[in-house]
């Protein structure tokens, strides 16, 4: 990142810890090389790469928000249901004939609103994040059902697919560029902006941060709302990838997002993690998924592979940190 800081002598960037990202890069390289080879080059086809990038983008955007939430020491497992509900509400607007310009804000506001509900339950209601979001996971899913009944929504304007998925810029599908842009912005924010640094301070030592004048509640609130907002946006993009909404839309999505973030080196206890890690984690998750399809391995092995990778990756770093008694 070049961002020269106000003409002062350069202070070298913080060295990244543990070479975790190096490990991820190597893993990614090995995976890509292996899959590329065993699929007889099918991996490198335009179609496959495009698919890969689109899926990665859709996972990555909420993963950015999830990273911040986990950095503050919290977690949100309701992301999948949020995606579904936002898609259902937004999709209903499309089906009712609303224009794109009118509906896009609906996606974003709904997402942010759902995130706000989570935030209030956790911060004001003092419910542990895991429990609160497990609860909203099913509540939101129920509302999806109420909104949709057993109908599907298929009247999605094809312009979404065209703009986000089909159109390319710089050889990448637009949606991937957008995701990349978000990652860069988020990374800059966390790294160079005061509130970004406060997120880390909060995750490192909430007590000290509070005494230093930082307000944990505000930061956490913003984190959950942002996650909701990004999820809302991801819902819109999902409709570009596959233009329909069912009651099951988004089911299981959160597992991928959390896997991506955690693989990327963000510590569940907060205070540690980078956007670059999340980006790499997302790619690993999606490449594994892709590889399983390409190599004609039964798609069911996807879950197993992911589970093993997570256990191995975290187990290794956990044991290193655990140390003595």
């Amino acid at each position, binding site marked *: 990142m070049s961002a020269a800081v106000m003409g002062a002598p350069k*202070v070298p960037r*913080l060295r990244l810890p543990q070479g975790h990202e190096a490990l991820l890069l190597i893993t990614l390289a090995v995976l890509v090389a292996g899959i590329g080879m065993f699929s007889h080059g099918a991996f490198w086809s335009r179609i496959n790469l495009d698919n890969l990038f689109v899926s990665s983008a859709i996972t990555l955007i909420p993963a950015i928000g999830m990273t911040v939430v986990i950095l503050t020491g919290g977690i949100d497992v309701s992301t999948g249901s949020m995606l579904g509900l936002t898609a259902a509400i937004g999709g209903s607007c499309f089906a009712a004939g609303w224009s794109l310009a009118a509906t896009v804000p609906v996606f974003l506001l709904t997402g942010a609103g759902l995130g706000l509900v989570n935030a209030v339950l956790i911060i004001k209601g003092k419910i542990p994040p895991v429990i609160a979001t497990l609860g909203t996971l099913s509540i939101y899913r129920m509302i999806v059902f109420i909104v949709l009944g057993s109908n599907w929504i298929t009247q999605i304007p094809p312009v979404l697919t065209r703009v986000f998925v089909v159109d390319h810029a710089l050889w990448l599908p637009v949606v991937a560029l957008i995701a990349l842009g978000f990652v860069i912005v988020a990374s800059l924010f966390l790294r160079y902006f*005061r509130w970004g640094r406060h997120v880390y*301070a909060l995750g490192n030592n909430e007590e000290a*941060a509070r005494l230093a004048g930082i307000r944990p509640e505000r930061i956490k609130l913003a984190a959950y709302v942002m996650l909701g907002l990004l999820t809302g946006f991801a819902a819109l993009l999902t409709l570009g990838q596959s233009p329909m909404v069912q009651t099951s839309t988004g089911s299981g999505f959160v597992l991928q997002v959390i896997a991506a973030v955690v693989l990327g080196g963000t510590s569940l206890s907060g205070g540690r993690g980078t956007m670059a890690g999340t980006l790499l984690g997302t790619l690993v998750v999606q490449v594994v998924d892709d590889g399983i399809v390409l190599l004609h391995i039964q798609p069911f092995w996807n879950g197993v592979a992911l589970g093993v990778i997570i256990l191995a990756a975290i187990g290794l770093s956990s044991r290193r940190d655990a140390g003595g008694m």
Partner: protein
Amino acid sequence: MALVELKGIVKRFGGVVALNGVDLTLVPGEAHALLGENGAGKSTLIRVMTGAIVPDEGSITVGGTTCRFTHPAQASAAGIAAVYQEPMIYPHLSVLENIFAGAEMTGRFGIVRRGAMAAVVRPLLEQLDLPASLLVRRMSSLSIGFQQMVLITKALMLNAGVIIFDEPTSILSQAETDRLFVIIERLRRDGRAIVYITHRLDEIRRIASRVTVLTDGRVSGTALTSDLDEAKLLTLMAGKASRDYGKPLRDRAAPAHGTPALRMAGLTRAGAYQNVDWDVPAGQVTGVYGLVGSGRSEVALAAFGALRPERGTIALEGRPIAPRDPAEAIRLGIGYLPEDRKLQGIFATKPLEANLTAGTIGRFLARGGRLDFAGLRGEALRLIGYYRIKARDETIGIGTLSGGNQQKALFARWAGQSLKVLILDEPTRGIDIGTKAEIHDFIRDLAAGGLAVVVISSDLPEVLAVSDRIIVMRRGGVVGVAEGEAMNAEAILASAVGADARAA
């Protein structure tokens, strides 16, 4: 810099009076040492000064203006900063960020101006002889000594007129300590007021020009260091070394012969202790005295299987042992009562009975693995009665008991097991005098019954009253074993604080 005066500070916590009308004057350019036993009120006083707690009565005046701190930020603004023993840090952030967290310098849109911040800090680092490259290091990668230095830098940045050091050297090496003193001297010459809390005689002489002693929440004496010779200083620090607890000192046992119940030889663990020899005879109370940071608990944990040594041997009744976890140590017959009863001792939300029998559950099993509730209850009642624990019955939550009764319960937990060695780590910390005396009686009784008892304590009068012999530790090493005639307050204190090593 301004004169800071504390007048008549009173602070109560529930029924306990922690500070009972304390007056303290901090003169710019003067280093003021603050002494006192554990529980005397030093930490509370510091917290009042830094705005972490609000006093019930009394006033704080900075440069003639009366201040009222309800939040640490206000104390910082008034120029009062503290450097604690265990620094409150952000482990995964850089040094620069640790210094500026919450107070970052920002430009447009809130962008953190790292360059500007670094520029502000660099001259301060120079003052402290610290390399500028420190700024990008991760805080957790620094030794505690350097972490302290970072916090001092932070205090300098606040342009603190008062810098409080709370026993900073207990975990520092000699080299780090020397460096710290150079810095403190510079700070003092800049016109800041330094408050220095310590137990160490040599440090008082090196650093402070004035000494104040706190006892039981009150100032029991204050003088210029130059007016005190070594003997007077020692007496001041030893306090009421010959204070008795209402019972005559027991007849000390004669030096033991034969195989000690527990013998540790050459025990070494980098960063904690080196070449430690402990001989603990059965039927006697062996005191282990030393200041905080002298490594006593770590050595004890080695015998207890909780913190393995790197080198050395442990022998129980002559047989070599190497317990891998506390469960094994207990099976071998070694018990350990932890320093911090709240965090490591009691199960606060559980009933007294569960706490008392936590170590002996296995003894109360009926056929089929069934818990023998009658037996558990009986044992609990027996222990409550025998140790005179003041509780309504065995079913109330232990968290509702007073500190003294909680400690008695922990003691009872161990005493109810069949042990060969029992190590008690600060067994009467934060407890009222009456209960202290009771526990001392229990300790003597245990030893009289044949048990080898180790009492680790930083309370000199207690150690003297209760022990048959005293191992003195300092900075991770054993500096002496006092028996018989040599067991007197001045001598022990002298070796613990290194009065004899002052020439070094």
